């Protein structure tokens, strides 16, 4: 068995990207993800890659646009306020059908907010951020090991579907260390050659053009509709979640990322007290995996969404549950982390209200 190493989430993210063949990193430092850039600054020159600290997040994402257009595997990472700045570029990249990976190690907002962990960028990541009809695939790891596997997969998904993929973590996951092995990811996708890349024609082929400007509405509509057919395929085949102790559950918690782990501790304590509680942990935030919610919506008494926000994913949970069961919410925000005790108290109140 491959030896495990102890690494911070941020460093593991960076190493996984390099192992996935990423050779270009453009970024601008921001807590709590600066270790990503620090790791890249150290390692990229050793392997002939490019690390560049841009003058701003806006510049960094446009460098990503350029490198992606040339067919390279490219990464940028930031935290909430920085991702807001990148949003215009992300929309252009989506509108040009280019693959890249963007990491958001989320901190409290809005505005400059704070530097402690948060999940309050769920809407930004899954419903837009930038302008126009577009989506990114959004992956939400809950451990350092899953961070590694999903970062590697993110590059494959980006290339396979020709679109930006976001890794969404939080300050806790970025900063914490856990044992991790790097050899476990195996690609399941056959990737086509990037014949669309702007690499120079050498007078041997027609020009490739990368563009997101279409003045004729008929033409633009057709392109967007085509892109949404691709999104339908992704919704069909890539939506993913983990189920934990759902089979006999009276209440199912919906939580993603690190908060899913905090919820697991609450669930174990609830079960010790005889409360039947389970967990659905969305791994892809977009596409959102509706199936487990549909499966259990007529079996459970209610759902409880737990987030480090004022309630964002809860909207997707409600859409999936479709009125068949009540969906309650517990959240902390601004960098505060819900504790297992708080979640347990909420669960007990929900069960108490029944009796």
């Amino acid at each position: 068995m491959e030896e495990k190493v102890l690494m911070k989430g941020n460093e593991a993210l960076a190493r996984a990207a390099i192992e996935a063949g990423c050779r270009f990193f453009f970024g601008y430092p921001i807590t709590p993800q600066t270790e990503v850039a620090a790791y890249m600054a150290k390692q990229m020159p050793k392997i002939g890659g490019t690390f560049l600290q841009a003058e701003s997040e806006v510049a960094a994402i446009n460098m990503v646009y350029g490198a992606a257009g040339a067919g390279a595997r490219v990464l940028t990472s930031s935290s909430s306020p920085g991702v807001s700045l990148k949003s215009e570029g992300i929309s252009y990249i989506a509108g040009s059908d280019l693959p890249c990976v963007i990491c958001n190690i989320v901190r409290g907002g809005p505005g400059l907010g704070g530097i402690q962990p948060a999940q309050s960028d769920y809407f930004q990541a899954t419903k837009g951020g930038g302008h126009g009809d577009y989506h990114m695939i959004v992956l939400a790891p809950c451990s350092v090991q899953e961070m590694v596997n999903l970062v590697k997969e993110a590059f494959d998904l980006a290339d396979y579907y020709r679109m930006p993929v976001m890794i969404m973590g939080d300050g806790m996951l970025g900063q914490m260390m856990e044992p991790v092995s790097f050899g476990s990811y195996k690609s399941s996708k056959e990737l086509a050659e990037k014949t669309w890349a702007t690499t120079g024609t050498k007078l041997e082929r027609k020009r490739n053009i990368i563009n997101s400007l279409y003045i004729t509405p008929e033409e633009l509509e057709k392109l967007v509709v085509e892109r949404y057919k691709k999104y339908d395929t992704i919704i069909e085949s890539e939506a993913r979640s983990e189920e934990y102790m759902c089979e006999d559950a009276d209440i199912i918690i919906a939580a993603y990322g690190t908060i899913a782990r905090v919820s697991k501790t609450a669930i174990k304590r609830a079960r010790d007290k005889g409360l039947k509680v389970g967990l659905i942990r969305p791994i892809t935030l977009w596409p959102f995996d509706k199936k487990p919610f549909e499966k259990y919506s007529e079996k459970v008494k209610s759902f409880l969404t737990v987030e480090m926000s004022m309630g964002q994913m809860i909207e997707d949970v409600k859409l999936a549950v479709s009125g068949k069961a009540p969906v309650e919410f517990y959240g902390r925000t601004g960098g505060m982390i819900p504790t297992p005790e708080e979640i347990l108290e909420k669960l007990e109140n929900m069960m108490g209200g029944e009796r």
Partner: protein
Amino acid sequence: MATHEIILAGFGGQGILFAGKLLAYCGMVSDKELSWLPSYGPEMRGGTCNCHVILSDEPVSSPLITKPTILFAMNQPSLEKFEGKVAPGGFIIYDSSLIASGVTRTDVTGVALPATQLAHEMNESKLANMILMGSLIKHTGIIDIETVKKALTKVVPAKKPELYDVNLNCILKGMEN
């Protein structure tokens, strides 16, 4: 091994994160499940600083500790902040050179060690953390010294191998107390 949920806390610069890292590597070299979660931000640069380490046979759920089984406190605010959170039957070790009050709870075990004073006497004023760690290891028995030695080789910077002996001597000193 049962699950040990350890909060280490003190001022930035006292080597709280390093001490936590040593415990985490003890878990690594003995093939345990573990997590190491630091506080981050301005507190690392002179304010209060803490670190949550979980060592277990089971996969770690919440990396955030709310009911520590062990508290390792190196300043007064840390003891005040975390004493009430320690699980009943838990263990508290603190640096009595820097903490005037003691453990007031009766349902936990409290051990006082003048670690900073001992460190000064050894002329290793920056290593009170390792002296306190030695004492923690002795009193709780959560890990043995051979594991600690293996772990120490991993946390001492490769460029400064001489620090291995210095740290180990302080841990051994702590184990005498």
